[in-house]
């Protein structure tokens, strides 16, 4: 059997002749395979490779406000690359009320096991009952499934979401019998598990967002469970839901809920508003990934993903960055609760100089980052 280096497996389509060994790894991404007799024709070359974006190559060496994270030798040896320590102490967070009476956003950080961290965000609706319940109990369900010996974290999240929703159903129906309040309360949940500081697994229901900053660019890791996602629309319709639009033209399931998956919303569970999360795995590259940010829709309604990433890149400290994101969201017209959780990775601070002036959408502007 031919064993290929990981980087080649993911990039190169086929190898023309078997190479026995792993050592030929090169730091550049390869997109095309060449044939054996195809020698590089230099004189006619026109198409160059893909330039790494956003890195300031004139900057020799390190950068100013990097986090001095020590090496984690164990994880590094296991993964074969340089993996830093990470801890929840580095995570920054902020949550603002906005023009609401109550803040129904919640976030939760926890070290679940010695090698797995959890960062999560919840955006409640119809009262904070579901959000509170999920906020308080999600971690214990995940820990239960981690302890059961399942190593696939996506499966762990799927099981935990399912169990948590069952538990909430029992809780709501027993304690608040007949109360409409209990039936209408629901929440989004976006959970990120980080194992050995490089295996990042995301599971979510609803429209709370996870964004990764890689090479200075925003990469959205979640896909909102909204009715404008045609697959989701089909799914709830096939379960008998009706879709009608509210006064602002926003489609809602049975005229009530603007999302197609959630925890709680017990009245809509028969109509396909399920609690099964969409999941995703991504390998954190500490040389390119600066941070992970989780936000509730109170932030996303007024800031684009790239704006969020640029704002964070302009700050030196994750806590400060989270504050600025929520503050900026309200300043740009959000009326909802706005919450942001920022978890830094190895490239924290690396892209701060890459942003000079941030031209915000609709010509809005704010003071640029410190290192412009």
């Amino acid at each position, binding site marked *: 059997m031919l064993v290929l280096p990981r980087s080649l497996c993911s990039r190169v389509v086929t190898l023309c002749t078997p190479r026995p060994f792993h050592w030929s790894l090169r730091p550049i991404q390869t997109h095309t395979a*060449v044939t054996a007799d195809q020698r590089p024709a230099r004189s006619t070359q026109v198409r160059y490779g893909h330039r790494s974006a956003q890195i300031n190559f004139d900057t020799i060496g390190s950068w100013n406000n990097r986090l001095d994270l020590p090496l984690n030798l164990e994880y590094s040896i296991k993964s074969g690359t340089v993996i830093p320590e990470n801890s929840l102490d580095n995570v920054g967070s902020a949550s603002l009320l906005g023009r609401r009476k109550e803040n129904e956003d919640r976030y939760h950080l926890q070290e679940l096991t010695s090698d797995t961290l959890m960062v999560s965000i919840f955006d409640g609706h119809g009262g904070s009952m579901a959000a509170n319940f999920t906020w308080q109990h999600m971690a214990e369900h995940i820990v239960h499934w981690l302890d059961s010996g399942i190593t696939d974290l996506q499966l762990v999240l799927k099981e935990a979401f399912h169990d948590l929703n069952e538990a909430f159903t029992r809780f709501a129906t027993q304690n608040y019998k007949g109360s409409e309040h209990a039936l209408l309360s629901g929440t989004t949940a976006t959970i990120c598990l980080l194992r050995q500081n490089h295996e990042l697994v995301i599971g979510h229901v609803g429209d709370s967002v996870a964004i990764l900053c890689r090479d200075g660019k925003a990469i959205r890791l979640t896909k909102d469970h909204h009715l404008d996602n045609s697959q989701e629309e089909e799914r709830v319709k096939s379960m008998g839901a009706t879709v009608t639009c509210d006064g602002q033209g926003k489609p809602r399931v049975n005229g009530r809920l603007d999302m197609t998956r959630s925890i709680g919303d017990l009245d809509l569970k028969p109509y396909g508003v399920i609690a099964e999360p969409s999941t995703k795995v991504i390998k954190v590259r500490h*040389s390119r990934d600066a941070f992970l940010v989780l936000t509730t829709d109170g932030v996303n309604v007024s800031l684009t993903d790239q704006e969020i990433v640029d704002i964070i890149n302009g700050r030196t400290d994750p806590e400060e960055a989270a504050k600025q994101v929520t503050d900026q969201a309200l300043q740009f017209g959000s009326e909802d609760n706005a919450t942001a959780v920022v978890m830094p990775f190895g490239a924290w601070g690396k892209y701060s100089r890459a942003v000079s002036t941030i031209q915000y959408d609709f010509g809005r502007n704010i003071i640029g980052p410190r290192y412009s």
Partner: protein
Amino acid sequence: MSVASRCLWRSIGTFAKHARPSRLVSSNNNARNFSVSSRVSALDDHFFPGTKCRYTQKLEVLEPDQKDPIPVYRVMDNKGNVIDADEDPQFDKETCLKMYRCMTLLNTMDRILYESQRQGRISFYMTNYGEEGTQIGSAAALDPNDLIFAQYRESGVLMWRGFTLDNFMDQCYGNVSDVGKGRQMPVHYGSTDFHFVTISSPLATQLPQAAGAAYAFKRAQNGQVVMCYFGDGAASEGDFHGALNFAATLECPVIFFCRNNGYAISTPTHDQYRGDGIASRGAGYGIATIRVDGNDVMAVYNVTKVARQISLAQSRPVLVEAMTYRIGHHSTSDDSSAYRTDSEVSYWVKEDHPIGRLGFYMMNRGWWTEQDEKNWKNESRKQVLEAFSRAEKKLKPNPELMFTDVYDEMTPELKKQLSSMKEHVQLYKENYPLGNFESMDK
């Protein structure tokens, strides 16, 4: 006998003494292809000082491409099969394994240090990807006491000699164990123990220094040669010319070893020079020259062995041009995708990699298996990361050391600078990560 003809006889005498010692020496050396008939007719001619030329009545323009390009010597094909059994250097299994382990360990170290620079742990790095065969093959053919002047992309040579992973990492971190006391950028290694002169990045300075050192060796008759590595780009510096000319005329025992890897940062060789590479220049300086496949570790070994013999036995310089390819970016400050295609690079990664070629050879001989490969991969990775972690934990040297070692005794100006530095740091100590440094004297 006229003065002119005495000169001629003397030069023919020298020629005979320097009779070609090896099958490997290029046959393109005009000076040595002096045919009998032209010598006879030349006797009638008057000779200009320092030349051996004849008169002609035919106006001829010498075009640079009149001669075929100098061939590239190799032992193995791309799949590790020895083409001509007579050329096989007959390494025993141990030697072969040692070479392979060194080439692969170098590759692993490069990957970890490159990644660590991308994370900002060290300030700079340069990888050796693709040139492992050139480095290890040549290092193995030298005597351990031969003096080495290198450019900066020769870490494998130092590794072959015994520089440890800790030594490399300590230098890259510039910590207290770095013999350079943290005053140089990463990869500027140097070692007295291993006869490796400290890297200095202004290009080509090592060439005249090597010529000079070799001249000293010649006078000392110490039985050693000087090995001088340089790149295809460095060969465009004026120092290259000066060095080769001095070495040729003073007949110094030095090997000028060019790593022609296709690029000088972003400048491809077709923009770097016209003519047949660096090797074609040897004849112009009257220097014996060999061109070799730098991705064939055995060929590089054979060539360097012969070059060393010629250089030492006849006390004269030899030029070697190793044809290879720089697979990595120039350094961590470079992004090579701006000036070359992915497919160009992947050709060399997949079809002509020095590690792959030696690996094939060893597998063919039953000296190496998939399982060995897997075990060694884990083992080498562990060794590198452990050394890396040790180096990272060490303190940085006392900042006062910035001022020492240039002068035997510190000059008054330096003393003044030292004390103002200390005052400044004392005043603003909360703004400096002093905890990471060895403490300064009070």
